[in-house]
């Protein structure tokens, strides 16, 4: 038995050391801006061979997917600190690259992604400070819900995401002029009265003539609850 033990201990120690090293490498690779951008990694290190690029792409894709999966999973959970989660979502949105915005847009209009993932993707586009995000949000707003799903419930949920997209365009302080132009171009392109009103009210809010859409909504819902009185 002692012999067996003597053989096993070095094996375990080597295995433990290997795992420790791998963990360190993994942590290092997730540092900095690159961790969310497979495309950016490729651009910054053009000397990599094709095989290495594929590996890096796969690793970065994996990290991207894991991060999205983690943030998506949180939506279905309760939290003692909503503010911390809110900051995490904003931080992620602030680090997005233009190429990743396209991935998010595809998620929102996908027929197969989960409701929470679509919601997260739309919210990330809404919070992204990149100019391209506005075009993606516009495309969401003009997409017919019927093209997303045959299910009435899923179409309704997509309508809610379209409302989120309108709100998102109004929440980009650094892109105010682009946001105004985007909303103005949407006004004659939408025939749903509720959406049209929301675009007009969002435009008004952007121009400082009305409270933010979120505040307008909260007031309406507070009144709804008081109807009980």
């Amino acid at each position, binding site marked *: 038995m002692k012999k067996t033990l003597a053989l096993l201990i070095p094996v375990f120690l080597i295995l433990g050391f290997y*795992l420790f090293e791998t*963990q360190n490498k993994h*942590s290092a690779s997730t540092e900095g801006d690159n961790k969310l951008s497979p495309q950016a990694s490729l651009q910054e290190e053009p000397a990599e061979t094709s095989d290495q690029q594929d590996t890096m792409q796969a690793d970065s894709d994996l990290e991207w997917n894991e991060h999205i999966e983690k943030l998506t999973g*949180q939506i279905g959970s309760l939290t003692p600190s909503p503010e911390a989660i809110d900051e995490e979502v904003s931080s992620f949105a602030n680090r997005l690259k233009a190429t990743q915005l396209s991935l998010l847009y595809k998620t929102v209009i996908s027929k197969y992604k989960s*409701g929470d993932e679509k919601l997260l993707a739309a919210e990330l586009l809404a919070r992204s400070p990149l100019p391209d995000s506005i075009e993606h949000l516009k495309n969401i707003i003009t997409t017919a819900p019927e093209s997303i799903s045959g299910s009435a419930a899923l179409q309704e949920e997509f309508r809610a995401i379209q409302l989120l997209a309108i709100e998102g365009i109004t929440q980009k302080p650094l892109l105010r002029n682009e946001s105004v132009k985007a909303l103005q171009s949407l006004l004659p392109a939408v025939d749903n*009265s509720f959406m049209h009103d929301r675009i007009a009210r969002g435009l008004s809010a952007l121009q400082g003539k009305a409270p933010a859409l979120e505040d307008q*909504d909260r007031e309406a*819902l507070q009144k709804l609850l008081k109807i009980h009185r």
Partner: protein
Amino acid sequence: MKLFSILIPAICGLMLLSPQSYAQPVFDEEFSCTSSQKAEQYVRDFNINVRSFGGMELCDAKVDTKKLFNDLLIVEEGRFAPQASHALIGNFVDSNRYYPWLKAQTEGMNRGNDVPWATAYNSMGYFTMQDGWAGLSTLGRVGVVVHEARHTEGYRHIPCNFGPYAGSSLPGCDGRFLEGGSHGVEMEYYARVVVYGENFHPLYKKMARLMALGRSNFVFNQKVIQPREALFLIRKDGTEARLIDGGRGFRREVSGSGFLKRSSYGPVLFTPDQAFSLDAYDWLGDTRPTADGYSYFKLLTLPKGQPSGQPPKDLEELDIGNKRLLASIDYQDRFGFYNFSKGAWGNFRPIPGKPLGIKTQYKDKQGLFIVLDNFKIIQSLPEQDRLVETTMVWDANDVSYMMGPNREVLQLKADGTVRTLDGNLWIPTQDALWGQAVNIPLYNGFDVR
């Protein structure tokens, strides 16, 4: 031997914390698995047919069983601020008792796809969740569970007057929010999450807000959240306007001249080739005309925005259900609509007679009424894509019909007076003579000063 028995679990423990597994979201503290005790409680409390949901699954949120466990945890442990229960006198469901209420209304839960057009259905307290339920966000799924539970208490739907379910043989609406039916209870839950929710995910709250606002638009035959109607009148000499909002009257400027029209954003002065918006909310002390940038009248200034390429004879914006229409009489006296999906005007059709203009109200009826030069009325039926001759005749002494603050029908007469249908002077406007009047929408979020 002793050392061996210590080392094996230690190494196994180290392997569990290996980078590969540590990176998996299932081990992330914020992406928690449901405990087996909690899962057993839910299966017991709601008589869940676990197999039909894909078998017992405590961690993977892609499996429907785990989705349901997440939903029930949110119902059980979602917290509302204490004022939620005080503010809601006569509430449908006590905000502190969603879980026991849901449990009491549920005989069992199954997963199936036997009624694919439905999201879920309730048969004598047994809920069957369909594929539509599984594809929803967490907020949507919780809303479905709350909604179905109300059906156990005997609340049923009725056919819809408008919206996506209108015209369907299947009942999908409630009469109004205050009836407290399944849609009402669902809406109440969403509104509480938004206004009083304490430990919900920010995106769950945001979705609750947007779903509450969006769905309220078409699941009640009487709309819950909508702009209030006000009356906007311009004096006969065109120097000043008045807004009548409920029982209050406000002086308003008239910046520009033209035909007064109702737009989705407020009063508009329409000239054949452009439109100016009037401020209904405030007296600005500025009478310079402001080009309309919010309503469909803005189309007049856009390339290809004018019907048949020329300034129109008349233009009206009107909501029918959730659909907003833009109708026009073109310069050749033909009638047509703007086609939003194509981003262009549709086909114009001849009007049987010489049109004077379009009215959106005739007595207590609202719609699109084309008044001819012999005062006969042709009605447009947009949903049937038809123009029909009617027996209605416009009185040459009437300028327009409007709804008063108490839903009374008012008429602006050519002599400048505003009267009720039985001919009595309408007191709030007797101090001046009026040339034009329309109803306009006012939004609750905007202050009227």
